[in-house]
């Protein structure tokens, strides 16, 4: 008994906090569900949040950890939703509308998205910062237009997804949350391994990473592929949640909304990403259900204001000291006050927050390699002995 207590002390809670959050949510929902079924609207909300989390976490691999800006994440989701959704419809004739069908469509959708991720990863080897950002944006728009025009997928009307068995749909939120767990597990395990270190090394200093023998090509591609794969998964979840899939949904506005979640969560901060994804999705849904009729117009206004205020509050240098005093962490610390024991600080406890991505293009700041001048006037500038 005693050593269980000790063991509990030993656990690196920091590593598990995300799972704990999701599991807690899951358990609460299960209890609610067991006692007379979840309301459809709650179910709806949970699913939307789950999808957002998967999307945001997967995007954070590229933006937060690889440090490249991607404006086309919804494109990968689009691929997943269309391909996965269609596959489900097709195979359901043989396999029925149960979990088997779902899983297969899940894998197929995910893989197709992953392939696209690979394709987009290739330019990423050549392009930096905004140039890559605009390529991802372009990719998203291209995918959107192609699916929107393809007769096979019902052109502008989109196509009706498979309606799974009622029992499956009622409990889909469970599967969705499990998928969230899986996404978290894979992402975190990847990041907290030598491979993750390689990826973050590329983010921090590509040249040094190369010089330390990091295979930049390989790891950039890995990051893009994994990220796209889970975006695809989110797409299949989307296709399973809604009864129709329509391309316009996956435009750059949606990509940007996902980016907002990642940035608000704090770049490379997975817990933060989860929370902000949930918050933003919740906010959107609540606003649109509360502000009906004539009030609907105010919705975006409120949303925009909240967005701006949050960002300014959480990022403005002016509020720094205030933030450090009153933030969630400080609050929790005040409650639990863990005894400061340096030996228990873990190696992985790097501070991830607020990592600038290459959007600020260090290239732009560093000047050209001016060999010409420097050779003609050897002693010009620089430190001298």
């Amino acid at each position, binding site marked *: 008994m005693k050593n269980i207590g000790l063991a509990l002390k030993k656990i690196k809670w920091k590593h598990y906090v995300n799972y704990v959050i999701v599991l807690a949510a899951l358990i609460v929902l299960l209890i609610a569900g067991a006692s007379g079924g979840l309301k459809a609207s709650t179910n709806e909300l949970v699913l939307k949040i789950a999808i957002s989390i998967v999307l945001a976490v997967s995007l954070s691999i590229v933006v937060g950890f690889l440090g490249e800006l991607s404006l086309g994440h919804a494109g990968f989701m689009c691929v997943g939703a269309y391909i996965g959704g269609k596959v489900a419809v097709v195979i359901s004739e043989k396999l029925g509308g149960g979990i088997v069908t779902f899983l297969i469509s899940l894998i197929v959708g995910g893989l197709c998205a992953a392939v696209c991720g690979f394709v987009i990863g290739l*330019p990423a080897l050549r*392009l930096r910062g905004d140039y890559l950002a605009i390529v991802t944006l372009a990719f998203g728009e291209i995918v959107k*237009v*192609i699916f929107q025009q393809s007769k096979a997928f019902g052109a502008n009307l989109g196509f009706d997804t498979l309606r799974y068995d009622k029992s499956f749909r009622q409990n889909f939120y469970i599967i969705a949350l499990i998928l969230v767990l899986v996404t978290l597990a894979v992402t975190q395990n990847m990041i907290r391994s030598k491979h993750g270190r390689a990826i973050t090394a590329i983010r921090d200093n590509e040249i040094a990473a190369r010089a330390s023998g990091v295979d930049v090509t390989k790891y950039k591609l890995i990051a893009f592929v994994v990220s796209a794969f889970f975006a695809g998964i989110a797409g299949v979840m989307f296709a399973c949640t809604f009864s129709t899939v329509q391309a316009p949904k996956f435009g750059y506005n949606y990509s940007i909304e996902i980016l907002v979640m990642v940035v608000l969560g704090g770049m490379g901060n997975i817990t933060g990403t989860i929370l902000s994804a949930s918050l933003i999705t919740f906010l959107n849904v609540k606003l649109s259900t509360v502000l009906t009729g004539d009030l609907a117009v105010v919705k975006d206004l409120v949303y925009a204001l909240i967005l701006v205020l949050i*960002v300014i509050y959480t990022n403005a240098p002016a509020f720094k000291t205030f933030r450090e005093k009153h933030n969630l962490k400080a609050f929790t610390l005040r409650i639990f006050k863990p005894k400061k024991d340096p030996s228990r600080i873990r190696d992985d406890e790097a501070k991830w927050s607020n*990592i600038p991505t290459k959007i600020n293009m260090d290239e732009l700041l560093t000047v050209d390699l001016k060999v010409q001048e420097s050779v003609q006037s050897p002693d010009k500038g620089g430190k001298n002995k």
Partner: protein
Amino acid sequence: MDILSILINGLNVGVIYAMIALGYTMVYGIAKMLNFAHGDIIMVGGYAIYVFCAMSGSLPMFFGAILISVVVCTLLGITVEKVAYRPLRGASPLAVLITAIGVSYLLQSLAQIIFKSAPKRVAVPDLGKIMIGELGIKVSTLITLAVSVAVMIALSCFIRYNKIGRAMLAVSEDRGAAELMGVNVNKIITITFAIGSALAALAGLFYLLQSPYMTTTFGAMPGIKAFTAAVIGGIGSIPGAMVGSIVLGIIEAVCDAIPAVAPYKDAVEFSILIVILLVRPTGLLGKKRREKV
């Protein structure tokens, strides 16, 4: 339809994109941020013209309206910069990107609250068209071309020869160094936003000259297209923005002209963009930056 008129349409759209892209690229080069609200400044400019033309469609009134819309946009640009972006000076560039998005939503929803959702026709005086041989060219098109070319030249001269312009260059090269050299970075950034917004107002005007219809989402797509154009040309480079925009405009016109392709217009444009960037990773005129090792 004949190549020449396609080209003219392309040029026309192109130079308008250029007006917007210039704003994008300058703000980017100097404030190091993507101002996603830029497109909505165009929209505001459009509505400004609409409001004042609604009073009377007379030509002098129209010129008054133009002036006012430029002023309104400039002020708006400055305010937005001061209120939303300046507090984030020194924060992660992406945080600023998000506020920009927020501001864009804000402007759009405000516009919808004020002007409602129905499309508006702005009482722009019809300038007719002149025939050059076979094809007739709208006077408005000619004006658009002339004015924007003039503006671009003026802008380039301003950047090259004026003290402030050179300060802008300095800031975009290396903000820290510029600050050390006694350049007031905040002032420069404000001026940049002012110029960018003024150009956006002009872009709005040119749109209305082509076809005087307004909705609240008026600026969204042009904004993103112009951003694309700026990147094609090489973000941060002013001539690049112009070239990129004109390239994009012409591609667009050509796509429109081929019925089979028209529905895929955006896809085609963006594919070409990707190809261009793969061939020239820093855009058409973007300076090749090599990180000093």
